[in-house]
């Protein structure tokens, strides 16, 4: 009887002893992992992110990938500084992503002033016609939790 009680106690206590620390670790991981909260912008539309407005004027295939023409407008003083904390990418339908680098233009330096930016991403030719442009908020000092992002439909 004594042995049975001990075995029963073990059956109850052991799973709890394993589960509780594991649950805490999973919670920590979930709170700290980088994940995007994506807002979809319809073709020709304007998205708002990080104190700036963003408008894609076109995505077209070029010899080595795609070229994106982007209008960026700081909405206030913070937008002129913090728009530096953005990351530009293109995504295909299967979720693969490529980095887009600025080839001309720069950040909007005065609130309300539109900055015309041209970016290029090197992507395989078979996805150049389908990739969509994404702006992610990606500060150097990232706080835990979801990061906002804009995805521009073509």
């Amino acid at each position, binding site marked *: 009887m004594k042995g049975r009680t001990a075995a029963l106690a073990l059956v109850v206590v052991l799973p709890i002893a394993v589960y509780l620390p594991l649950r805490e670790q999973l919670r920590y991981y979930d709170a700290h992992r980088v994940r995007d909260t994506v807002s979809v912008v319809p073709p020709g539309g304007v998205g708002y992110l990080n104190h700036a407005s963003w408008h894609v004027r076109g995505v077209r295939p070029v010899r080595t990938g795609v070229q994106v023409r982007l209008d960026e407008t700081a909405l206030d003083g913070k937008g002129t500084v913090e728009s530096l904390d953005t990351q530009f990418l293109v995504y295909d339908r299967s*979720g*693969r*992503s*490529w980095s887009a680098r600025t080839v001309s233009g720069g950040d909007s330096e005065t609130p309300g002033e539109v900055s015309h930016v041209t970016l290029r991403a*090197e992507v395989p030719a078979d996805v150049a016609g389908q990739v969509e442009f994404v702006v992610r908020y990606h500060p150097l000092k990232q706080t835990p939790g979801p990061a906002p992002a804009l995805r521009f439909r073509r």
Partner: protein
Amino acid sequence: MRTVAGALIGLVLAAAAIWVKAHTPDDYDHRYAPLASSGHVGSPVGAGGFEVKVEKVGAARSVTSGQGEVVRPDGIFVIVTASARSLRAPLTLSTAMLRTRDGREFRDSVKGVTTPVGMLDGVTLGPGVWHRGVLVFEIPPSRLAGSTLLLSDRPANEKETPQGFPPFGFELTAQANISLGLNDDQARRLVTEAPDGVTVHGDPG
């Protein structure tokens, strides 16, 4: 009978505990060491978020750097031509080492000979797009046989940081271990026939 069974169970449990303890890495380096995928020259090796293919292995008695300067090694230069691409998301390869048969590791970029093309030079790799580059190592000629190329996206210089190895956020990163496939004879021949003045600047073609 029950006592004997209890003792046996106790012994088995104790043996299991000792086995687990013996096989658990007890230092930080080993616990968070890269997760390695192995392969050989000529075949793509997938490691975590990237894929790499070693195309050619050569040796040189001297190389000409991007500035036209002729650089001579104390040992011999090993020049590895490889291509890499990411599999899902943008990625930069940061660390390349040549591990010799006796476990010594040699970093790339020696004597001012940097890796100029598409491999570790800050190039962002993307899915489906192969980037070719060269890696230059300086090693003693006698250690070339049996050596293995190690490539990873873990930042370089990690062993010198006061925070220890690896840097925070780069635990258990993927690493491609590619055997250069050189036995003693092949390594000796490569060293003997190593040319002078190999240019490593620009696309190695």
